[in-house]
């Protein structure tokens, strides 16, 4: 779909800024239809996603394996920038994907791990058990194939790990207000 030409774009100048308006270049894809002709794209997409779900267990195992590998690299070379970044990305991907894959407790634990990596002032001083407990818990949830996640054990495990991690982060950031605020602030983004 072509973008608007320069002559379609209207620019109004103000002392500190310009306001740029243009005809909506995507308006042609919006069609008015009768209710009886309205299909259900969201329902269709949810069905297609359900069709993929047979692969989620394998995908989750791959993501958990990546996290283990990333932490093994940290143990080997320390928190170099590359090792730290890969550990964060591996945990961050699980945080984002695990609920979709049917492992919501793993997502909560991965989020807790992300917060430790992001907000601990000195990663080398973080007790190794704090990392290993998070990673082992994710591995256990994945290897038990949601058995842990489908009952209260998974959510209790994730709740306790998050509590321990939050207490640690609140303590080590007590003199770093910006981080402390981020640690204590709730998410503001709705999922839908």
């Amino acid at each position, binding site marked *: 779909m072509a973008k608007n030409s320069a002559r379609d774009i209207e620019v*109004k100048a103000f002392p500190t*800024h310009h306001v740029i308006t243009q005809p909506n270049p995507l308006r042609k894809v*919006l069609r008015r239809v009768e209710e009886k002709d309205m299909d259900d794209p969201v329902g269709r997409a949810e069905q297609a996603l359900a069709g993929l779900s047979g692969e989620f267990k394998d995908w989750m195992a791959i993501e958990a394996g990546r996290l283990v590998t990333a932490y093994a690299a940290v143990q080997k070379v320390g928190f170099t920038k590359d090792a730290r970044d890969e550990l964060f*990305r591996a945990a961050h*991907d699980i*945080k984002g994907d695990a609920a979709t894959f049917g492992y919501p407790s793993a997502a909560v634990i991965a*989020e807790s791990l992300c917060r430790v990596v992001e907000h601990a002032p000195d990663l080398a001083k973080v007790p190794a058990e704090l990392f290993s407990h998070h990673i082992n818990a994710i591995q256990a949830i994945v290897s038990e194939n949601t058995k842990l996640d489908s009952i209260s054990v998974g959510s209790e495990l994730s709740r306790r790990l998050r509590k321990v991690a939050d207490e640690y982060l609140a303590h080590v950031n007590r003199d770093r207000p910006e981080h402390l605020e981020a640690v204590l602030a709730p998410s503001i983004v709705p999922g839908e």
Partner: protein
Amino acid sequence: MFRIDFNKLRFLVCDDNPHMRRILRTLLHSFGAREVYEAEDGATALEMYSHYVPDIVITDWAMPIFDGLELAQMIRQPESKGNPYAPIIMLTGHSEKRRVTVARDAGVTEFLAKPISAKGLYQRILNVVASPRPFIKTKTYFGPDRRRNTNSAYMGPERRVGEKHEVMQQPSLLDKARSSI
């Protein structure tokens, strides 16, 4: 009622995680999209952006080397030869207030927190198709108007001045249609 002709839209999806790319591709194809281009990092996405001229960009944030934030900043170059106005939907595991603000200030049009849902993605696409916002250019910002609502009780600092003229909303097709029903 309105239906989006997804088969007329061209998407560029950028995510380093192959599983998430597969999920996004599945969702977009299920909506009816035919043209879905995929990149696994920001640099490749930028090349594909210039080459394929997508209508909508969907990008992850956390990626190695060249992340989604940098991709948004590169696209939002007002003097660039490419199209700096394309809607950018940031799909990310980041959901902290600070992160949302940073993404907004990089020119991101819509923010969608993971875990992804078909409904959430469809709603963001509907927003950018049916209710585009005007663009604002200042010394430090170029991107969609960050003021989604006019708040008469707002007491904080102003990023820009210009009296009431600065509030110039592009008409929303959905609003126009609703008022005509």
